[in-house]
């Protein structure tokens, strides 16, 4: 079947003049704000929450206070030990809170880039998702962010750009349909050394 389909494609293209690739398109806006601020604006516009901290100590204080409300937490495999949330660890399908690490982020589209190496169930099953982001990995455009993650090595990458939502029921917006209803990006300007 492979040869038949390829043969049919070649037959179809026999008299079709080939058209060259137009090259890469730069989507950067000349007047865009600095990437970290721009990311925060776009991520919030889609319903996400953003907190920015100077270093791991400040972030840890916030995480400790925030996590007090949750019975159980599921950590992604890439979460630095110093940023782990002090709550009982549970399997992703039972945990009330998921904590992941972003591989990168894109300001223009307000997207977090997540890797399957960090654990997909942790990114999807708990109703609240906290994503730790190294401010240095926030790119201006989605193209730059994806270029940086091309050789991630895992089976899959994903973009999460806000809480799960749907307008399929009578065109009324509902959040938290299948994925987390709350997603919180924690930006760290000084990422802890491993």
């Amino acid at each position, binding site marked *: 079947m492979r040869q038949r*389909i390829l043969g049919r494609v070649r037959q179809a293209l026999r008299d079709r003049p080939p058209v060259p690739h137009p090259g890469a398109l730069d989507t950067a806006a000349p007047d865009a704000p600095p990437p970290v601020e721009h990311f925060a604006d776009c991520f919030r516009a889609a319903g996400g929450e953003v907190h920015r901290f100077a270093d791991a100590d400040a972030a840890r204080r916030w995480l400790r206070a925030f996590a007090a409300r949750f019975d159980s937490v599921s950590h992604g495999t890439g979460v630095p030990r110093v940023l782990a949330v002090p709550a009982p660890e549970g399997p992703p399908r039972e945990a009330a809170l998921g904590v992941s690490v972003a591989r990168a982020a894109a300001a223009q589209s307000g997207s977090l880039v997540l890797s399957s190496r960090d654990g997909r*169930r942790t990114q999807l099953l708990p109703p609240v998702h906290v994503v730790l982001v190294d401010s240095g990995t926030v790119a201006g455009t989605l193209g730059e962010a994806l270029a940086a993650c091309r050789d991630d090595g895992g089976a899959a990458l994903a973009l999460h750009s806000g809480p799960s939502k749907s307008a399929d029921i009578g065109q009324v917006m509902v959040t938290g349909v299948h994925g987390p209803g709350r997603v919180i990006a924690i930006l760290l300007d000084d990422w802890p050394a491993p």
Partner: protein
Amino acid sequence: MQIHSREYPKRAREGGDVRASVTGATLSFDARRRAAFAGVAAEEWRVWAEGVKTHLLTHLDRYLEEAEARLEANGARVHWAGSQEDVHRILSAIIERRGARRAVKGKSMLSEELEVNELLEKRGVDVLETDLGEYILQLLEQPPSHIVGPAIHLSLDEIRRLYHETHGTELDATPDELAGVSRLILREAFLAADVGITGGNFLVAETGTVALIENEGNIRLTTSAPPVHVALVGIEKLLPRWSDLAVFLQLTARAATGQPVGNYVSMIHGPRTADDPDGPEEVHVVLVDNGRTDVLADPEAWEALRCVRCGACLNACPVYRQTGGHAYGAVYSGPIGSVLNPGLAGLHAAMPLPFASSLCGACEEACPVRIPIPELLLSWRRRAVEAGMDSRAKAGLLRAWTAVATRPGLYRAAGAMLHTLPEPVRRVPLPVVGGWREVRADPEPSPTSFRELWREGIE
């Protein structure tokens, strides 16, 4: 793909009960699309995207081979399917080998085209649609009526009644409550499923990556939770390079829903690696032809293969807004459906869809890859007339009109005559325009003709 378009004129006129929902939803989609493109160099993006897709299509054999090689290097299994029967054979083999009893599905127009649910049910597999709109339609045993919003023809009250009957919720339940009921059922289904089936918005040849756009997270779960993931991908869905993907993701989302990017994008290279704590152990990518190489060979219609299935042309179309998608009687409705269906299933099967348009051009203006839809509609119309598929009465009437309108003297005389026709003669039922006159008052002839007004000088 089965097409039931013959009844189009009748069903289009009966579309009154879906009009409010469809018009409201499409106008809102269309307004959000315009707002989203106002913030970027929209024309530059569209011209670029047209160029990339045209390059892809004119080198499709090379990119199909590259995609296959990359996917296999990533550990995915690649299958080639010429027809619906091939797809069914491939899926049956996977189901049998895995002993699969339960499947979850992400929204996929290609799977509708290939009648995948019917096959799974026949093989004794419990299949659940997991997109909220598709889940509702599965309960109602209805096909999707829109490429992006499959259930936009249903009002909140209709969905409340359905959930009341099927799930026992209150008749005044909020959309949040209805979504909550669905979440509980589908969450269990994701975790219990033996196989997850999706389509594919894009397949990047350079990296062997299937990309899927959505908002709910159901596709993320369909491709992450079950041990097997099968992606059905039309051969025209390829993109040459990894760097092309970022722009196409944003272009498609802006055109479809006015979002900067889909809320969730899954980019799947292959099965779970040694570094991955979870994810499917098998990933199958089925490359589907099913009529696409016929369209590629067509010197005009091949341009429709650039389509990214954003639905922007449906939202922009004044005809679609009135009728909704079901009237078209085909998986692909609206303007793009009217040019794709004749190519995929044959013009005869898709009649009279190329005529279901006023040729106003709004579809082409909205299209993010600049498909010349009105031109393609005209091309199919020309072929239909040449093949004698169109109404002979209409052809005769138009020939008569042409004969009169291209002869000034005759035109003048005919105009004057029309004027003096007695009332009962003017009310005689006419072919072709009969349906139009059913719901409209006949115009009263003006006492003075346009020519006379012109001579006297129009104020």
